[in-house]
């Protein structure tokens, strides 16, 4: 079961199940699988709609969400994160379907100013780790909507 993928902990964009999320981010959108038959949003991604078996299509959202919960990570549990602690990892509830929670990082704001359920918006930033040289993946991160960078 050991993880041998050299670019870990970057996401594996060659994994068909999740590739659409990262293609979306590269295009500046938060895309979530949505059923073409019954319109249901499906998260995490699955092979087919868990409701009706219909085809799931990566569909753009507004990229707006609310801050459901967060942690300020001080301990680098993986060596890749050693240079960025402390950082804020979070769950945000999507505006279109709040039962969908995206795991993300909150950026461009001090952790002390975070407030439960505050509105946040996606920003698309390259994720890089010093342990994975010369590689990056653009991912959705989030920041408070009031914060102007």
């Amino acid at each position, binding site marked *: 079961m050991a*993880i041998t993928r050299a670019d870990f902990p970057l*996401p594996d964009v060659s994994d068909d*199940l*999740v590739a659409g999320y990262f293609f979306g981010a590269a295009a500046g959108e938060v895309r979530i699988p949505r059923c073409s038959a019954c319109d249901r949003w499906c998260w995490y991604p699955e092979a087919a709609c868990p409701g009706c078996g219909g085809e799931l299509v990566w569909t753009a959202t507004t990229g707006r969400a609310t801050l459901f919960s967060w*942690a300020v990570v001080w301990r680098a549990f993986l060596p890749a*994160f050693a240079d960025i602690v402390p950082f804020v*990892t979070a769950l945000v509830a999507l505006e279109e379907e709040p039962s969908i929670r995206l795991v993300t990082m909150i950026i461009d704001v001090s952790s002390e100013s975070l407030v439960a*359920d505050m509105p946040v918006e996606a920003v698309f930033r390259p994720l890089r780790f010093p342990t994975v040289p010369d590689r990056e993946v653009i*991912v959705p991160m989030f920041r408070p909507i009031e914060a102007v960078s």
Partner: protein
Amino acid sequence: MDDGPEWGHATEFGDIAGQVAIVGIGETAYTRASGRSAREIGAEAAERAITDCGLAPGDIDGLTYSAAFADFDVAAFHDHFGTSHEMWSSPWGGGMSWAGTAPYLAAKAIERGDARHVLNVFPVAWASQRGGMTGGPGEVHASQSLKQNLEVPFGWFPQPVYFATIMRRHMIEFGTKPEHFGAVAVAARWNANRNPDAVMHGKKMDLDDYAAAPMLAEPLRLFDSCLISDGGAAYVTASLDRARDLPHPPVVVQGVGEGISGSGQHWSQQRPFTSTPQVFSAPLAFTMAGLTPRDVDVLAVYDPFTVVTIMQIEDMGFCRKGEGGPFVEEVSLWWNGEGLPCNTHGGLLSHAYVLGIAHVVELVKQLRETASAQVYDCEVGVYGGYTGMHASTLVLTVDR
């Protein structure tokens, strides 16, 4: 947030109240890295449990173990004991939530005539394996592709980070305070200090120590998190009639429940983020037993993080939802307190991280009145198992 009644369900269990009893228990040493394999640890726990109930390995004709770990299965049993007899077995036992439901599987196997004496074993060697993600709880999670691609890259990994966000949400929704989580950690350590077998025995800790410990993932501090350990335990279940012929007072299985979340296996997507499937499990187990939370003399809840103790105490009905924080502060969890003695061996937080099997063994000791941190006049013990999307409830009494 309206979680609705449909976010999970209970497994349909037949009424087995009073049918079977736990007749033997066995434990290995609980340690930091020992260099031993889980299989060796499992064999030792099994041997001690069989000896404890006055039986021979050839009498054990049923075995339950963990499908996820499978360190001590029928082949390992026969290898260790040099036996070759037919054995009924199920991989849906072992530790975690299944430490609470294995007696149900045993009861049904015994009822069908498939077995007379059923051994449930769970060993773990995660302290020895943790180096370099070559084993242990982190690797188990990181190897799942959705977590690896949609959670780990954002630093939402490993378990202490999940539970830091669960703590935060519990604080947001219910006003739970750091000192409430601290009360759980301090009680576990207090209890461990009464138990010479606990890894943290002899290491005192109070609320000031708790607050001074490093943040791992704010709001989660070092002592909100369980240990990483090597160790294992086992217990033997038999019919109540058979149990009465064996050396120890039978510890009778009066109620069993299992709850399953419908939100899948990922913590991030659990719809009621601050509840556990105990909501579904506990009521059935208490009903089967004809008892209520008020009747419980000693509780053992799966406590990988302090917030899980609080959530389970709420979800099992010891207090109202959201009041678990003030409850654990006002109602002592100490073995010798006036409140609700909980995890009297020290729990995953301060005894050993052996994934719940030692919790059940501790309840058996309490009901036999042989525990180190013995609760006075102990007649009813309850285990609350938890594995994220699963929870179990096991209600035990003693037949003196």
